[in-house]
């Protein structure tokens, strides 16, 4: 079953080509649409909602043609815009009920669905207060709720993690994951950060300049690019715990990609973070056992997020560039970005 299908979809504006013969075939599940700003993500969403006709090519959502069956699509699809879209002077409940009715739900059903949906996105007592007093994270939840309230078959989420702090970001990503796993709703989520979609999505589509750069399931991405960052404490027995662990792991056959902090001299932990290639669950277990065996303290063990830029680099030389990019591509601050 195909949720979204586009065929040589092209969108030209007088001065710029926003989409250039884009052919996609997206199945059920959580799909990430990644591209830098201006890559054509929002244009694609607009076309998929049947709101602006494409210059050339065809697109279908849930088997419905966007050019002729826009209204039917919009009845079955939810949309969460990137920008603020909430009036501050009404409560979340009132607003979402109104939006549910705009989607065609009868009054009673609209109230029930609103209460359910707000609970599912994690808004409880505060839903009776005016939206103006909400935090950014709560507003994002209301925006998500209005996209889900009519129980769509598919939701289009435009940059849902924008403006959120790392914790809020992780909460939102977990929520998006649940939208599919618990609610059974397919998701198309856009972001300009590949790393944050990696763990949430089943499938990632990367577009640049309106053209398809890469489309693959997330396991493909992670198989080749998962980098594990490990930091350990020193102990009396092993004055340089990092080196001791390195020795132990090398003996176990783990590939090292380098040490972090070469460009971050002076930062806490600089030079003490080992980057190694994770080949699967075994690697995590191995690190854990090795650290425990050496009697060291495990400060952190985390997946490094990859920036969209790496995909562009990889695109040029897919095979050779991967380890190099991962090894050299520890962007400043990526460690802090993680939590």
């Amino acid at each position, binding site marked *: 079953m195909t949720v979204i299908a586009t065929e040589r979809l092209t969108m030209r504006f007088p001065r710029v080509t926003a989409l250039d013969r884009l052919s996609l075939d997206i199945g059920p599940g959580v799909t990430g649409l990644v591209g830098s700003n201006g890559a054509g993500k929002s244009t694609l969403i607009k076309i998929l909602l049947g709101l602006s006709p494409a210059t050339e090519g065809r697109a279908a959502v849930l088997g419905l043609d966007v050019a002729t069956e826009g209204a039917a699509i919009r009845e079955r699809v939810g949309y969460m815009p990137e920008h603020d879209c909430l*009036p501050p*002077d009404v409560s979340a409940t009132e607003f979402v009920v109104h939006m549910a009715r705009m989607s*065609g*739900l*009868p009054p009673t059903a609209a109230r029930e669905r609103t209460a359910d949906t707000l609970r599912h996105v*994690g808004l409880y007592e505060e839903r009776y207060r005016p939206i103006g007093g909400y935090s950014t994270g709560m507003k994002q939840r209301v925006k998500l709720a209005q996209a889900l309230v009519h129980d769509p078959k598919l939701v289009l989420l435009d940059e849902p993690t924008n403006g959120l702090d790392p914790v809020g970001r992780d909460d939102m990503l977990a929520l998006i994951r649940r939208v599919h796993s*618990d609610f059974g709703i397919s998701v198309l989520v856009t972001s300009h950060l590949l790393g944050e979609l990696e763990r949430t999505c089943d499938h990632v589509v990367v577009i640049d300049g309106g053209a398809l750069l890469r489309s693959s399931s997330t396991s493909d991405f992670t198989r080749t690019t998962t980098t594990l960052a490990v930091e350990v404490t020193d102990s009396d027995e092993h004055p340089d715990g990092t080196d001791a662990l390195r020795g132990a792991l090398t003996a176990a056959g783990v590939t090292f990609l380098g040490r972090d902090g070469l460009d971050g001299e002076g930062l806490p932990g600089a030079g003490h973070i080992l980057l190694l290639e994770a080949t699967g669950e075994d690697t995590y277990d191995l690190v854990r056992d090795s650290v425990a065996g050496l009697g060291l303290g495990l400060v952190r063990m985390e997946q490094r997020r990859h920036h969209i830029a790496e995909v562009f680099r990889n695109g040029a030389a897919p095979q050779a560039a991967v380890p190099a990019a991962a090894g050299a591509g520890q962007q400043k601050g990526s460690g802090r970005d993680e939590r």
Partner: protein
Amino acid sequence: MSADTGTATGSEASRIHNIGYRSYDGVRLGRSYARRSLYSQSLRGAFGLGRSAKSKVLPMLLCGVMCLVALIIVAVAMAAPTMTKLPVRYTSFAIYLQAVIGLFVASQAPQSVSRDLRFKSVPLYFSRPIERVDYVLAKFGAMASALLVLTGLPLVILYVGALLAKFDFADQTKWFGQGMVSVALLSVLFAGLGLVVAALTPRRGFGVAAVIAVLTITYGAVSTVQGIAWTTGSAGAVSWLGLFSPITLIDGVQTAFLGASSAFPGGEGPGAAAGVVYLLVVLALVAGSYAVLMRRYRRVGL
């Protein structure tokens, strides 16, 4: 967060019922229902219903003033035993209280449209089954209906009062009908102008000021120039000058067709021929407002 969605576990006796996510299999009522919902929400919103207590104050106050004036007129008519009809014509009522109507439009038209524009809620509407035309029609219809309630309710009070005072039934009914037609026309015209001005200014404060300016400055200018024309003896110009402000337009139409006495200087409104021009201008303004609104929302759709 996952705690409340976990599947039921445990033995039959200690089963925890957790409904988790429920999908919706009920009816979806589609476009026309959504349009009606938006209409009723906007109409209620114009009187502050479903909004904060603070936003109820002004519209309710204005509506109260309109009704109070009508009640006073009725009371006067009933108290004076010699009267055979109401002291104020049905058609004159809205002209006398035009400032109240103007304030209502100025405060509620921006509330109706600027809010969605300013807080960028418009894309949420257009990502749903309704189309641009539904949105514009619902907002236009709601504003016109709100104005009709505001201007029609006092007329109903007058009419009921007149019947209770045992004035001539046929006359009263005819005049009341004429008055209702007049305020209906006024409501549609004012709603159109108010919404256009408000939709062009996303900032609500500017919208309020701009609507007041359009309604009062044009009226002030027209009545001043009319006054000058009247005193300088060019009575013919007086009736044509009325074309340039909303309230004098309505005055002209009802003088020509609805048996009203004009509030123009000298009391000489346009005749039937000029009245046709007045009516055409009113209709053109209403159609123009609709067209401008449609254009406006083409640019902001998502």
